[in-house]
């Protein structure tokens, strides 16, 4: 009687550990569901949207300019930010706002990315805290899941802040 209870408990614990590990591998290496909050990515992603962010691009270091990414906040590792990549390492980015008279540019240092939200007026991003290390990126947002009438992939950047490199054939 006692042995059968022990056997069943061990079996239960074993299955829990196994499925927990499979779940961990799925969330770490395949993708995860994210609930977004805040106005910094409007109109592409609004408050309370649910998106799916895939991890494979980050693991293989294949994030590109114009991708929307989820990253750990540089000032609080327990918080995540959702922004668009405006420049990768070596790219030229514009640091002045569109209303400034004189345009200022800077180059993104090695191993870093420049992030900006789509809602430039209400977003705290690399324009205030500078470029962030590439390794803080967690995943690339590829699908919007909720609300259902907006289901599908996400649109391109509406802000036209991405500077295309002049020599694209290298």
């Amino acid at each position, binding site marked *: 009687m006692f042995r059968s209870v022990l056997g069943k408990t061990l079996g239960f614990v074993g299955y829990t*550990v*196994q499925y*927990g*590990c*499979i779940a*961990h*591998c799925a969330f*770490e*290496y395949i993708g995860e569901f994210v609930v977004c909050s805040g106005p910094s990515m409007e109109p592409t992603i609004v408050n309370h949207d649910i998106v799916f962010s895939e991890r494979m691009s980050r693991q293989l*270091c294949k994030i590109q300019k114009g991708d929307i990414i989820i990253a*750990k*906040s*540089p*000032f*609080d*590792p*327990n918080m995540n930010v959702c922004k668009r990549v405006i420049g990768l390492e070596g790219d030229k980015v514009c640091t002045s706002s569109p209303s400034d008279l004189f345009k200022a540019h800077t180059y993104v240092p*090695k*191993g*870093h990315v420049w992030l900006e939200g789509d809602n430039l007026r209400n977003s705290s991003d690399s324009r205030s805290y500078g470029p*962030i*290390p*590439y*390794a*803080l990126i967690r995943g690339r947002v590829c699908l919007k899941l909720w609300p259902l009438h907006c289901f599908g992939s996400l649109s391109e950047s509406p802000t036209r802040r991405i500077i295309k490199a002049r020599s694209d054939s290298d």
Partner: protein
Amino acid sequence: MAQQAGRRYMRAFVSGFFVAVPVTVTALDRLAYVARVEGASMQPSLNPEGGSDCDVVLLNRWSVRNYEVQRGDVVSVMSPKNPQQKIIKRVIGLEGDFIRTLGYKNRFVRVPDGHFWLEGDHHGHSLDSNSFGPVSVGLLHGRASHIIWPPNRWQRIAASLPPNRGPLDDEEEEG
């Protein structure tokens, strides 16, 4: 008969594979990791002879799951210069500390929120916060707790600040 045994073996292998791989990967991600230390930036604590015989350390990932570190810990972080590389350095200052730097662009630095200041024990031969500034705590990978190879160097890595390398006490402000 042989075909049945072969099929049974394949089924056992596949089901064992689906247990072993996720459990191992989860253990390496969440519990502990083993890494070889290369380079001379942490001499004399790690790799004291340099050359061919590199130390192998045990990185405790469970103790940094809430990003809690102490001054003097030897930690591994993802390099801010190269996202595919991990570097092992010592924590000299935490957020809010004032640090007197060795070769950084500013002589004194206040470590911003959510960052820490790392230095290798071998100053001058180390790519650390003195070159790229404070490092975000989100890049923390693990805490090096023990040296496990070579066997004559089995030891616990102690958390201790090197002499004269610590946060500055602001005595004038406590008046």
